[in-house]
């Protein structure tokens, strides 16, 4: 016990009282540990962070109707399968053909907030519709009609009286033919935004669900629902299967193009992080080994003296290793906290969101630092045992 105390006193005295050299080693270990804990934090956080980032590339899950349409209740039931924390955007769409200036146009109605989150890459020149009577039109439609934000446009809808379906009512249709004008519903819209996506979304006009209901007189049905879910590809397929099986009327599937590129980018990013960590640890090891070699060379006389006083090789190794491991511990401790700050900084500046401290990372960082330092010290410390005690009798 007493001996242990003297041992601790010696190695701490050596570290604390001969600072210069050790500070270099401590710094190397602390930096290594910082990068380690920082990158590991990021490594585990990247899927979450990047998941959110990837959500900017649009929907990664799609609901289609088993029979033509599905209802709001179907959507609610299906969405309930996905944990709330992972839902980024839910945009149920309803499509109709309407007319503007007597020409047919495809109209989509959706929950604008949901669409905004599900398709964050949509660029809108002007504003999204935020109230009834407001219309967002695709770029192609806008150029066809020469419409700009602020313009007024009347949208008409002819309630469907389909000839094929009602062949028996053909006569009735004929009768109604001249009443068509009266049957038309119309709304005077104000164009608030022009949608620019580079895709076929530009061929539609967009209105609120409320307006669509007014226009068509029909409520509560959708053709398609786009979802943006912050989850891994595996999780997504589980959700999709569950929904397809569990919710009648809805067929859920993944937007493969998006989920696959997410997975490959993620795995590439993670292996990059892993590689950087390994390289940094190797560099730390080299730096510690170099410093330790210098320290051993610097302290040859002291080692010789200790041996002359009767120190065995084992106790020499024990003392230097003790110093090294203590240093590794201190460096790891320091690095775990600095690493968190580092990860936090990266997360805030790159992903714009903060991360929470993982307590488990503290012991892990310390253990890795201690092990890395221990391994780095092995060779230099072995050479300490080669010092000849006769050295101390030789003059300087």
């Amino acid at each position: 016990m007493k001996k242990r105390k003297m041992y601790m006193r010696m190695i701490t005295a050596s570290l604390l009282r001969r600072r210069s050299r050790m500070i270099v080693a401590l710094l190397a270990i602390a930096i290594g540990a910082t990068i380690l804990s920082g990158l590991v934090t990021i490594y585990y956080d990247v899927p979450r962070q990047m998941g959110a980032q990837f959500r900017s590339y649009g929907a990664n899950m799609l609901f289609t109707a088993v029979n033509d349409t599905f209802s709001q209740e179907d959507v609610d039931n299906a969405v309930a399968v996905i944990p709330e924390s992972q839902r980024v955007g839910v945009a149920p769409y309803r499509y109709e053909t309407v007319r503007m200036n007597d020409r047919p146009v495809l109209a989509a109605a959706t929950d604008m907030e949901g669409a905004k989150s599900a398709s964050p890459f949509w660029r809108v020149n002007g504003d999204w519709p935020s109230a009834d009577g407001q219309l967002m039109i695709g770029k192609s439609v806008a150029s066809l009609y020469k419409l700009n934000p602020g313009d007024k446009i009347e949208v008409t809808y002819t309630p469907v009286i389909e000839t094929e379906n009602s062949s028996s009512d053909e006569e009735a249709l004929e009768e109604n033919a001249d009443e068509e004008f009266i049957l038309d519903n119309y709304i005077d819209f104000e164009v608030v935004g022009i949608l620019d996506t580079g895709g076929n979304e530009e061929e539609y006009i967009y209105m609120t669900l409320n307006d669509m209901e007014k226009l068509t007189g029909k409520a509560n049905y959708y053709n398609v629902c786009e979802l943006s879910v912050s989850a891994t590809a595996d999780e997504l397929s589980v959700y999709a299967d569950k929904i397809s099986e569990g919710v009648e009327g809805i067929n859920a599937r993944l937007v493969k193009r998006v989920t696959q590129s997410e997975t490959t980018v993620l795995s590439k990013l993670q292996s990059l992080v892993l590689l950087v960590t390994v390289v940094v640890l190797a560099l730390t090891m080299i730096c510690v080994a170099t410093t330790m070699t210098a320290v051993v060379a610097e302290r040859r006389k002291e080692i010789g003296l200790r041996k002359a006083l009767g120190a065995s090789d084992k106790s020499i190794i024990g003392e230097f290793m003790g110093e090294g491991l203590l240093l590794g511990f201190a460096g790891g401790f320091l690095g775990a906290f600095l690493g968190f700050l580092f990860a936090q900084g990266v997360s805030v500046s790159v992903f714009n969101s903060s991360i929470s401290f993982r307590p488990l990372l503290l012991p892990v960082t310390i253990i890795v630092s201690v092990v890395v330092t221990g391994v780095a010290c092995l060779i230099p410390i072995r050479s300490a045992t080669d010092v000849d005690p006769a050295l101390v009798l030789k003059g300087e």
Partner: protein
Amino acid sequence: MSLLELKNVSKIYGNLHALDNVSLTVEKGEWVAIMGPSGSGKSTMMNIIGCMDKASEGEVLLDGVDISKESSKSLTNIRRDKIGLIFQQFHLVSYLTALENVMLAQYYHSIPDEKEALEALEKVGLADRAKHFPSQLSGGEQQRVCVARALINYPEIILADEPTGNLDEANEEIVVELFRKLHEDGTTLIVVTHDPEVAEVAQRTLVLRNGKLDHETVNKNFTGHIKYNL
């Protein structure tokens, strides 16, 4: 049985005989001085007696054990248990206090005992400097710490290689006085010195030349006190 016996000991470096067929005996409790010009093999001999080096030829009996045949591991044990060393360059660990430096010898020998270490420092008159670091001590004080460290484990034999080489007369006298006390306590002393005054206080002086034992003088009126030829 003599405490130390060298029989035809040689130490050969290449074709240089640093020690050349040296034989000598030292009895328990004796105080022996070793003199000789630089390069005559004094330190080489001390290293061999101190179990820090092995003779190339011959036998070295310490307490009846032939240490020239021992492994370096058991040499470490013998050195630790039986030998106290004092060096010209003091060799204190710079980041340990005087007290801790003394305790270091205890640490490797058995168990550190702060009280005992402090007593040893008291013996060399440095109780009040226990918490000082070597850099805060004068050369004489540092050497006295070394003496305290050498005697702390009650070694059978104290080997001092030019212990006063870096000291002024006043400190030299203090150190020699410490040797005299050690001698009185029955410790065997072998002191290498260039200084005739330090050699004269010993009971016997061996003179080495070119690795050979040149001659030996016995101090007939041995008192253990240094006499200055004023």
